[in-house]
């Protein structure tokens, strides 16, 4: 089984296929072709052996162990960066509502706002681990808190007139 020159990846400018062969990234058909060629071509055999040497050398480079507090540090960063934005997201409609100077539509709007605030309170910390049952039990308490928050907002609204009016 003699290898013709045009079948040699080293000589026909297709040495990349040898790398793929060494990395076991070829289809079975191509593997068979290369292996057949390798039996006849010393140059390609030497190349493949060298590639294995490079990988064996690289195996000797072990990475360092990871710091034990990596996860804790990440969760702390997430908690510190996420909370304000979650809070802003949920209070934004309230802020806009107040600045819009629309006036209170007691039943409908207050109900919607209470719901918004309950959701905001229950997701204030995405990394708080807490069984579902507990969340349900807390709901009544949270609605109470939301009502109190609404009262505070109402007070604020009375103290600070809507922006549009003051800026004129």
């Amino acid at each position, binding site marked *: 089984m003699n290898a013709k020159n045009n079948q040699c990846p080293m000589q026909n400018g297709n040495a990349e296929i040898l790398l793929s062969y060494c990395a076991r990234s070829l289809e079975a058909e191509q593997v068979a072709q290369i292996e057949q060629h390798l039996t006849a071509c010393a140059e390609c055999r030497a190349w493949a052996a*060298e590639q294995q040497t490079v990988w064996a050398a*690289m195996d000797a480079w072990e990475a360092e162990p990871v710091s034990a507090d990596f996860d804790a540090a990440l969760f702390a960063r997430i908690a510190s960066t996420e909370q304000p934005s979650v809070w802003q997201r949920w209070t934004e409609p309230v802020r806009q509502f107040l600045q819009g100077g629309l006036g209170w539509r007691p039943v409908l709007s207050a109900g919607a706002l209470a719901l918004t605030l309950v959701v905001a309170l229950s997701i204030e910390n995405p990394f708080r681990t807490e069984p579902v049952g507990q969340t349900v039990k807390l709901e009544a308490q949270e609605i109470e808190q939301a009502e109190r928050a609404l009262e505070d907002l109402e007070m604020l609204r009375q103290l600070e007139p809507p922006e549009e009016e003051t800026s004129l």
Partner: protein
Amino acid sequence: MDMMAVATIEHDAELMLRVREGDSQSFALLLAKHRTPVIHFLYRMIQNQAVAEELAQEVFLRVYRSRASYEPTAKFTTWLFRIASHVALNHIRDGKHERNQESLDQESDEGMSRQVASEAPTVEQMMVREAKFEEIRRAIQLLPAKQRAAVLMHKYQEMEYAQIAAALESSESAVKSLLFRAYETLRAKLAHMAGRE
């Protein structure tokens, strides 16, 4: 891109979709699985453990922040290493890398003695291994950043050409030639190690 991964949603992508729905436990699972490979990749890219961990924090912070827009269009690891490569290449491009090089030798010495101590080799074996380690580290450090990223993903993360291409936002053929050139350089520097030790 990776059609198999798209056809059947893999476990990691499923977890990420749950993170999108606000499930922080799924994020903790993803972190537990992928933190070490990502940190090791960044460590070998930057060759400074403290900086690698700092960059890894940035990577996972980005993963968490992009949860809302996450779509499982590629394998999760491909997406993850796309972020990791981006963070590493930006870090190197911004020249922050150079400052770290000063403390590099000291730190790698510490890392090496820790690694070697646990295996209790003879003094001679230790010296051979130290020299070998140093040679590999330097050879990889001298590769252009993108070649380095490709080689590290190929060798240590065992990623396919298509995955590396997606991670580096290149074509598959570009990655093949990138890898080929990188290995040619490493071959010239490391092939003499055959039969040593």
